[in-house]
């Protein structure tokens, strides 16, 4: 699905990612963990195409294409979805209207016909159930005045609507209570298939109780310093990140 090689990314002259290597295959769930400031969110942003980051070296191949040459919208149209850590509030644009525009632009880019209002609403109703989101929320301005939980739920709802190939969840668990966490994780799990991949970026292990990863990677100072299976996450939960830092310092 996606292959990241020796990726270096910097912002305002500061190098945040210092040589990331990561290979994610169809059907896999990868967790990226790491202490604050290790570059987790930067990696998520770079994958989605955030333009503030400068890529000095390295490559990202996504479904056989050079991802770095694509605009954010092209990436989305080709099936990349970033669930934002801090979803943006956009006054005056309703979630419904926004999603209809997004979905139809994606469909258009894929050579499919646009959905009319009736079919769009039908699809929306169906997907709303997945994340247990209320209709009234969707007619309001996008994320405006939403609680933290509502915003995250809305992200996963958008994911359900847009049916991406590669989903990147950036700290989707932050700000969620345990019930909301279960609902959101449940939604993500229902959307998983052999044809899709998921990258879960998280600081804590608790989300991984519900979205079980095939691989866990530890990011530290802009590099993946450790990889393992889900047990690595449990180990981190138990011991914290300090032992990784110490291990790295001793090298």
């Amino acid at each position, binding site marked *: 699905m996606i292959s990241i090689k020796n990726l270096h990314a910097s912002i305002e002259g500061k190098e945040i990612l210092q040589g990331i290597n990561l290979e994610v295959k169809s059907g896999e769930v990868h967790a990226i963990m790491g202490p604050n400031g290790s570059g987790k969110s930067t990696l998520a942003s770079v994958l989605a195409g955030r333009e503030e980051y400068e890529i000095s070296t390295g490559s990202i191949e996504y479904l056989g294409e050079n991802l770095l040459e694509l605009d954010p919208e092209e990436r*989305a149209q080709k099936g990349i979805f970033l669930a934002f850590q801090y979803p943006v509030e956009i*006054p005056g644009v309703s979630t419904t209207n926004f999603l209809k525009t997004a979905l139809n632009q994606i469909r258009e880019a894929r050579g499919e016909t646009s959905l009319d209002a009736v079919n769009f609403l039908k699809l929306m109703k169906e997907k709303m159930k997945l994340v247990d989101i209320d209709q009234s929320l969707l007619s309001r301005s996008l994320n405006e005045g939403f609680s933290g939980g509502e915003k995250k739920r809305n992200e996963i709802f958008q994911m359900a609507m847009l049916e991406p190939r590669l989903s990147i969840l950036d700290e989707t668990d932050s700000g969620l209570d345990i019930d909301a966490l279960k609902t959101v994780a449940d939604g993500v799990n229902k959307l998983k298939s052999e044809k899709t991949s998921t990258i879960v970026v998280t600081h804590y292990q608790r989300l991984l109780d519900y979205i079980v990863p095939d691989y866990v990677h530890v990011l530290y100072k802009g590099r993946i310093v450790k990889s393992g299976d889900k047990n690595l996450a449990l180990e981190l939960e138990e011991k914290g990140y300090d032992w990784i830092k110490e291990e790295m310092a001793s090298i």
Partner: protein
Amino acid sequence: MIKETPPMLDVLKTKAGQSHLQVKAWDTLSDIGLPNKKSESYKFTPIQSVLLKNIDWVSQGEFFFDKTKLYQEKGSHLVFSNGTFVQEYSTLNDLDVVVGQVTEGKHDPFSLLNAALANNEVTIKSGSELPVFIYHFNSSGISNPRIKVKVKSGDTCKIFEKIFPSKSNNTFTNSYIEFDIAPNAFGYHTKVQNYHDKAFTHETVFSKVSKSSHFYNNTFSFEGALVRNNLTIHLKDENCEGHMYGLFLLDKKSHIDNNTSVDHMEPNSFSNELYKGILDEKSTGVFNGKIYVRQNAQKTNAFQSNNNILLSEDATLHTKPQLEIWADDVKCSHGCTSGQLDEGAIFYLRARGINEKKAKAMILNAFATETMNHIHSKIVENEVKKLIDKKLS
């Protein structure tokens, strides 16, 4: 030898009307003079020098009337040409319209100039709830339409006003409309200003609101060489409301100056103002919002906000709230923001597959349409929406 440009008033003197009131208006105007470089409230709009450079005062222009500009809508349609009401092109639909001599009005320089130069004064009396559409087709160097709207007690009066300046020569429209709203009545006034680079206007709207009455003004500005809007609302009695909504969505070298003022004179009145600006290319936008709360006007609620987005480095914006509060038990708030488009918001939309151009348009569109409130006409609302879409696409 270089000939000095004579001041505006010297040139216009011969055009002044001879009725007692018009002579008086002219004399007062001569005393106070027109705003010049030193006038604080015209600081960013040097109107006199701009007009002197661009307007041929004696030009009569070709009479023109374009029937296709009229809204296909039930109601009264009043056509003016160069400031004069043209009955034969108008459809009154039982509306009470009287053409008469100029009567007393506001006393600021351009209102006085309008009074002195107006050919006559048109009085409209509210009757049915059907909308009243007013069209000004102007081709003379200067036109001075003068309208008074009397809204009777218990009535609702909806006025929609548009100016069509000739595209073949520079024109200056110095319009004056005054609302006199009796107790327990509603007045709505909407202006759509979509001119061009030969159009210069000074547009005065003055509304006197009586007990338990409401007045709403919507001003949507899209283009013009120089447009100055003077909106003044007097909340004369208790439980009055004044609402002001404005949008200036500009590009090219358009220059729009919104000068608004609301005066709370008695207790328990309410005013709300929302103006938004989107400025592109070399355009200039000015917002000046005054709120007066007299000593007697306890329990006043007054809100004002002006938000602007600048899309170009060559665009200029001046914004200034001005609050003068003499009463102590009041709730007043004001705020203004100016900035660029929110990059984070654009990225969010793009990350969902919406292309950059469309993402920007969506955000700006939502920003702009927030000013569309209380228009009370589907056809005008759709027109404004279309103009916003067109400007942003």
